[in-house]
């Protein structure tokens, strides 16, 4: 067998293993990405695409100038700023507690993970019900149990208060995940570092901030990356709890707005531009965070 036929054979074998994935990935990921990029520069005509009018960057500029888009960008940013640190801190707390010498660790872990595996549709509806204005559980607790308010709060009718259930849901659903990932990080820290620090007279608080947190840094930064991307892509909870922007289109997230532009107004060009704006931001943030991730701590 000559070298070249051997190589050809190798390629042939590899192709068999690669082909199924490539046959799916091309039409449903690669071509869509390119196609969507193209659409974003047109006033896209869905019935007769060949009649679509080239508008250059107009879709992008229109989106950026649109107050509804700006509001949606602000809402999305706030969601990330609030829910990501909250999930990290609470997850870290749960992980530290679970890392103690306790019984039924597996049971705790499963129960804390329950919200993570529950579908967004179900938990969004559940939070909508709990925060219902007339007689929700939350209003009852605030008014009749804790006495912090004297009348029912109409959570879902106010463009700011609507985000209370949306943010709390994001945190509630994500803590189990950060806890499990952080726990794995904690278990990888060698016990003798703590023992040495204890001998040197370091208090538990000092040990936590001078040993645990720095050594967990890669894990924590990784969580921040994943959670931030997730938060910027939040969609279902907002769509169901606000009915897609109620009241007055002031409660959109970027993706609910994209959905409305595309499938509500059938303005595919504008929807594609919005999704590329989001992708661009996600990409930049990922790159910055991955750069930070690579700075490892040495001990």
């Amino acid at each position, binding site marked *: 067998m000559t070298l070249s036929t051997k190589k050809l054979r190798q390629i042939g074998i590899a192709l068999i293993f*690669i082909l199924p994935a490539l046959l799916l990935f091309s039409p*449903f990921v690669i071509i869509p990405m390119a196609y969507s990029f193209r659409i974003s520069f047109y006033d896209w005509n869905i019935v007769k695409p060949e009649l679509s009018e080239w508008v250059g960057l107009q879709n992008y500029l229109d989106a950026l100038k649109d107050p509804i888009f700006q509001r949606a960008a602000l809402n999305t940013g706030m969601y990330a700023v609030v829910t990501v640190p909250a999930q990290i801190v609470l997850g870290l707390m749960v992980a530290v507690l679970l890392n103690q010498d306790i019984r039924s660790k597996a049971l705790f872990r499963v129960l804390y993970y329950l919200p993570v595996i529950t579908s967004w549709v179900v938990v969004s509806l559940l939070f909508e019900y709990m925060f219902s204005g007339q007689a929700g559980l939350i209003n009852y607790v605030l008014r009749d149990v804790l006495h912090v308010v004297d009348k029912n709060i109409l959570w879902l009718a106010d463009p700011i208060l609507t985000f209370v259930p949306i943010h709390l849901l994001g945190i509630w659903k994500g803590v189990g995940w950060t806890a499990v990932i952080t726990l794995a990080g904690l278990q990888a820290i060698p016990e003798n570092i703590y023992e040495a620090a204890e001998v040197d007279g370091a208090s538990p608080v000092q040990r936590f901030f001078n040993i645990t947190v720095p050594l967990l840094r890669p894990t924590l930064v990784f969580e921040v990356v994943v959670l931030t991307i997730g938060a910027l892509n939040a969609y279902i909870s907002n769509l169901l709890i606000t009915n897609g922007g109620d009241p007055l289109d002031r409660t959109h997230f970027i993706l609910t707005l994209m959905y409305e532009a595309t499938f509500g107004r059938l303005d595919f060009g504008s929807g594609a531009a919005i999704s590329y704006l989001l992708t661009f931001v996600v990409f930049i943030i990922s790159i910055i965070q991955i750069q930070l991730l690579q700075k490892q701590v040495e001990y």
Partner: protein
Amino acid sequence: MSQKRERRIRKIITYTLLIFGLVIVVVPFWYMLITSLKPQAFIFEMPPRLWPAEVTLKNYIEALGKDYFGLYFLNSLFVASITTVTTIFVSSMLAYAFARLEFPGKKFLFYIFLLGMMIPPVMLIIPQFIVAKHLDLLEKFTGLILVYVTMNISMQTFLLRGFFEGIPKDLEDAALIDGASNWTIFWKVIFPLSRPGIAVVTIFTFLYSWEEFPWAHVAIKETTKRTLPIAIALFQGQHLTEWGQVFAASLVSLVPVVIVFVLFQRHFIQGITTTGLKG
């Protein structure tokens, strides 16, 4: 003596905090269960009870008998099962190529598939919708399954590649000397040895397809072809205040997921901790 006491106090604080957290996690589920067992007249009762005054299965009977709920359950089960099996085959083959075979353009291809993990899935919905329309895949389970498998390929391939690379090469070398082809090695050596990895892929993919909402929401409009997440969301839209039925349907839809999760939770936890993927 005092050290022993300190340890006991620490234990009490740990359990107290853990149980407090657990209450916050579990109460919404409990409330959902209680609501699903209440008669409609008590849905907005004040004060809301965490223990129902009257238990009825009426919500379950009505919700499950309504709007083809049973059909939606089967639709979801069908789509999720086929997606899972297909993803296992497609991803493990690709993972084998990345882990064991040499071919030109390997690195480039690797980055292409890596890209699939970075792009927000919802941004692909518009062009996927157009592609699916051209390929006549809208209003079809095939359209759901193909897109679901595609959206899972990247993650699951990277997960499996890790598992495959952990398998000692000696076994394959021995088989190669005996004249076995790569194909045989893949099926007879690698695949059976990666059972834990395959289990993780099964769980991830099943959960994903079981709860996927955005794509199903645009690809399926026909009433009889809906999957559960769509059906539940629309059901709530149509029966605004019938929360008992909404939650009865929701809880039934949770059953397969909880079963899969509890059965495989050890593999599952191992999977997310080694790969950091989201469930």
